[in-house]
């Protein structure tokens, strides 16, 4: 028997930057700029990157350890208000398996001295198969994954 579970969650992160909203927004709308802060320092190199920043445009990013599982990020831009707001939907694949779909809102508010950035992600995560017979195996794999992820985070 397979049981599928979808889990929903929302989180919000805020930052204040000493830069005008137009400059902060440009760091999201320009491919080179975005790559410099969002992707360059991540654990794995980027092997594919498509970036089409407009309503209806998409971003496509593939990373992952060389010879290992492909991590694929595919986004569609739903709403763009220059210097003020970006809303995009994205999904993530690990290898062939879609593991989540999320809606991301980024807001840029002018404040004294700079910009307050508010990042909200509303996501649904697919637990995937929860095969009763394979639960022990799943736990062991889960710990291996946790172990590997922690090593990589520490190396970053």
């Amino acid at each position, binding site marked *: 028997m397979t049981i599928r579970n979808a*889990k*929903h969650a929302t989180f919000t992160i805020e930052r204040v930057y000493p830069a005008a909203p137009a400059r902060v927004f440009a760091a999201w709308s320009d491919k080179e700029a975005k790559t410099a802060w969002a992707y360059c320092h991540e654990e794995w190199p980027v092997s594919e990157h498509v970036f089409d920043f407009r309503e209806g445009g998409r971003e496509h990013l593939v990373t992952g350890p060389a010879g290992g599982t492909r991590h694929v990020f595919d986004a569609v831009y739903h709403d763009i208000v220059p210097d003020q707001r970006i809303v995009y939907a994205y999904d993530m694949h690990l290898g062939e398996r879609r593991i989540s779909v999320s809606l991301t809102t980024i807001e840029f508010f002018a404040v004294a001295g700079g910009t307050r950035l508010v990042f909200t992600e509303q996501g649904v995560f697919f637990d995937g198969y929860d095969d009763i017979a394979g639960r022990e195996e799943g736990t062991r794999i889960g710990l291996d994954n946790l172990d590997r992820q922690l090593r990589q985070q520490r190396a970053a």
Partner: protein
Amino acid sequence: MLNYQAPLDLAFQALADPTRRVMVERLSQGPASVSELARPLDMTLSAVVQHLAVLEASGLVRSQKVGRVRTCRIEPTALHSAERWISERRASWERRLDRLGAFLAETEPTAKPRRKK
């Protein structure tokens, strides 16, 4: 569904700290006593105990005292993939948004050119 926030916040807190990540990493290799956990860490035992309390509160780690020895172990069912994913997404964006701050500082138009570290 919304009940998720409390365990997620605790798991996120637990994983966001580098010392606690080191402790969880060690425990994922097998159980350890508190002093074994503390050995490679450059801090007082009471600081280690405080970190352990956060890990136990998050449900990631269990401990049991037998005689004078407290043994800690990973709680295998505690960190389901959904919680882990969400905690990682949040932690990953916290890091990225910090780097955005650094990027904006480095590319400030009126700043004198600085050497990148």
